[in-house]
């Protein structure tokens, strides 16, 4: 079973999945490896990471030196096609007028979704992150704890290939022994930060990323992941052998033809297709979940983008993994006499409690790096190290004015130059005018590679002012009603950003950094707007009370028992960790439960 057209779809499947990104990919993998027949609908076109990504191209081989344009909003070679903050024909609205009340919505419309260009940072949520109410007296406790998810974190990490090290940190959990691949050596800027960060009472440790630093163990891992299932083991072993470890060059955001890093197609969909149990229908924009008289989901109505015609596919169960807000939109657009408020919305909570990572950044010039002996600093196309959150004690005393915390991501050193590489050199050299000629070249050699910047990503607990709904007027090019977002920062986020700016300033000072203006003290000026970090989750949150949540602990909707969510929508809050590893772990856990229920005949 392969990538198909509308005409080739079978009459009925066990499960219909909407969306082929991290959540959809993981669900399809888990189900098909265990023999479930699946159809996946994907709104974007097929995309081949083997032949279509530009790993080695230089900016000078792209139009406009690869700079961002409205057509390619992260730059020409970035692995995002037909995708962006704005997509022609696919509008959304913001209710708030003030800049701080705006939500920005990135959508990726291609096979594999956002996993084609994500940063591959894969940190686990910790025990506190699942119980924020107990821990901080705010937000909602998830109906599951870290221990429920830990085995799935291990499984996903073994499957996708994650490098990193176990550091024994509070609330930033280790992986089980033997799960992680060796962490790559740190770069000189990372080592320098590691040495001096303790002066600011911070620490720098190896980061976890879904990048293979060594070959996967195709002898041992398949049996661990699929015990008692020789077919799955052999398919997975083949898939693992076909992946090459990182060759320490090229930007991971461009995609990886040698399959050293995780994207959904390379790691999830290939083996899933090889089982013969998966059909993928690209160019299919889901419009509505259909239901029968008993209130069970029967399938999906979609627009075939190649013909503009509407189609319908049927399944015993439906899984939404269109990315959190797109799945919410599908629920809200699936209205019927049984479900006049939209599907699975008897609680009225569909669309409520959206969160994103709380973020701000600040950078400085590092005189210590001037004149550095030249060497190749590419490494694994992204960070090798980060600053974890460690101020739990202050937080327990309530000394900080915000729940949770934040980690700092940073880049240092000599990355491939872009159009902005020479910005700020006049200032650094203390020259008032615009330098040109031989002096400019000398300045550039001296100052390039000497910037160090830290970006924070922190906890956001849900609030009542942040939600989405169907806009009364706005529709997309297929006539599907569009979303309208409401966004509100609370004192928690603003206090956190104030703290971020102050602490990054202290850290850079401890490292000997030079900055022309001090860190921002107005949090509304420093905070990145809602959605900007592209970690938006929530909108169909899980809970243990059907009147206050949309799904149970299995991401199964309370109202429609054969309808499941496999993206970030069931998240009850954002941790100080990037969400995608947790999306995949929850999707695997959900899929196991779904199979149980199918077997028992409950669905």
């Amino acid at each position, binding site marked *: 079973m392969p990538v198909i057209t509308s005409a080739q779809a079978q009459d009925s499947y066990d499960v219909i999945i909407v969306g082929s990104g991290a959540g959809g990919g993981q669900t399809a993998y888990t189900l098909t490896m265990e023999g479930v027949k699946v159809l996946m609908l994907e709104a974007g076109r097929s995309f081949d990471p083997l032949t279509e990504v530009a790993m080695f*191209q230089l900016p000078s081989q792209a139009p406009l030196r690869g700079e961002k344009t409205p057509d390619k909003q992260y730059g020409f070679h970035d692995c995002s096609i037909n995708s962006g903050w704005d997509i022609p024909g696919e509008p959304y609205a913001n209710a708030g007028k003030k800049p701080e009340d705006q939500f920005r919505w990135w959508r990726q419309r291609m096979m594999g979704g956002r996993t084609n260009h994500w940063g591959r940072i894969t940190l686990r949520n910790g025990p506190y992150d699942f119980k924020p109410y107990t821990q901080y007296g705010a937000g909602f406790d998830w109906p599951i704890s870290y221990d429920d998810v830990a085995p799935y974190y291990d499984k996903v990490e073994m499957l996708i290939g994650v490098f990193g090290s176990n550091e024994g940190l509070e609330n930033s959990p280790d992986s089980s022994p033997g799960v992680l691949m060796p962490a790559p050596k740190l770069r000189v800027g990372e080592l320098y930060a590691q040495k001096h960060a303790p002066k600011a009472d911070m620490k720098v440790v190896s980061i976890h990323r879904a990048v293979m630093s060594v070959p996967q163990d195709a002898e041992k891992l398949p049996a661990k992941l699929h015990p008692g299932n020789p077919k799955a083991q052999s398919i997975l072993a083949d898939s693992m052998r076909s992946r*090459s470890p990182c060759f*320490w060059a090229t930007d991971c955001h461009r995609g990886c033809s*040698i399959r050293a890093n995780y994207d959904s197609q390379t790691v999830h969909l290939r083996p899933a297709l090889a089982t013969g149990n998966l059909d993928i229908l690209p160019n299919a924009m889901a419009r509505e979940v259909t239901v029968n008289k008993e209130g069970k989901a029967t399938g999906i109505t979609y627009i075939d983008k190649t013909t503009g015609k509407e189609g319908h596919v049927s399944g015993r169960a439906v899984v939404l993994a269109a990315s959190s807000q797109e799945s919410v939109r599908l629920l809200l657009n699936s209205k019927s006499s049984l479900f006049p408020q939209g599907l699975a919305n008897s609680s009225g909570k569909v669309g409520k409690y959206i969160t994103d990572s709380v973020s701000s950044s600040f950078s400085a010039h590092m005189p210590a790096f001037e004149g550095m002996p030249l060497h190749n600093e590419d490494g694994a196309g992204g960070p090798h190290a980060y600053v974890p959150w460690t101020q739990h004690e202050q937080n327990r005393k309530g000394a900080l004015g915000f729940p949770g915390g934040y980690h700092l991501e940073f880049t240092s050193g000599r990355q491939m130059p872009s159009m902005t590489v020479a910005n700020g050199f006049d200032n650094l050299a203390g020259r008032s005018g615009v330098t040109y000629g031989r002096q400019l070249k000398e300045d550039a050699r001296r100052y390039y590679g000497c910037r160090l910047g830290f970006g924070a990503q922190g906890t956001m607990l849900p609030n009542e002012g942040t939600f989405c709904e169907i806009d009364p007027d706005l529709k997309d090019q297929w006539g599907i009603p569009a979303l309208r977002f409401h966004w509100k920062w609370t004192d928690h986020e603003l206090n956190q950003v104030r703290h971020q700016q102050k602490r990054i300033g202290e850290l850079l000072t401890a490292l000997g950094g030079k900055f022309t203006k001090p860190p921002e003290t107005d949090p509304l000026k420093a905070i990145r707007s809602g959605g900007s970090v592209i970690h938006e989750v929530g909108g169909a949150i899980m809970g243990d009370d059907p009147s206050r949540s949309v799904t149970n602990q299995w991401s199964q909707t309370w109202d429609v028992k054969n309808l499941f969510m496999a993206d970030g929508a069931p998240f009850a809050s954002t941790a100080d960790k990037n969400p995608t590893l947790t999306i995949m772990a929850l999707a695997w856990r959900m899929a196991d439960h779904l199979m149980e229920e199918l077997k028992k005949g409950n669905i």
Partner: protein
Amino acid sequence: MIPPTPSPLLDRRTAIQWMLTAAATLTVRDHSALAAETPGATASARLPAKGYGPDPSMVKFYLPGDVWPLTFTESQRRTATALCDVIMPADETSPAASTVGVPAFMDEWVSSPYPGQKADRALILEGLDWIEAEAQKRFKTSFADLQAAQHIAICDDISQAQPKPEFKKAASFFKRYRDLTAGGYYTTPEGMKDIGYRGNIPQATFDGPPIEALRHVGLA
């Protein structure tokens, strides 16, 4: 499309070789294809003035003029070339901006249909015309044909932090032109080498920083 069956095992060395061959083949293929499409330099002017769209081929190698027609007149191109080289001249270790194609990149930039670049278009086209007129006024010679000291005389006037009122507009042109020239230069292989970027090369292992680099920052 996802190939329906897994491809044969790729070990790291094969993968690296495969990537390099692919890159080499692409160079040949694209450049010969381009040559066939654009028999004369003017052919590109016939291309429609629109962007590359949301789904361009990312692996292709592009040259200025491939996606939208270029703008500079012959005179503007001569001025632009000379000004690029005043800003980024050849020195002992690296070539001048014009040697690595920065003037053509400038033309591509101002000719682009996108809003970000459109804002630069008027500034730069008017600026090039101004600087040519200024050369004629001061030295009765085309800017492109001036002596180094004469180039500097004009450029010094428009590179001040506080330019004289009559040079204000030319100064904002110069700043922008300088930034674009530097960006255009350091994104070429020669520019990357000169600024000290040593990456984009596949390697079997990542060995971390050399001892000299560690010593430099007091880590060894």
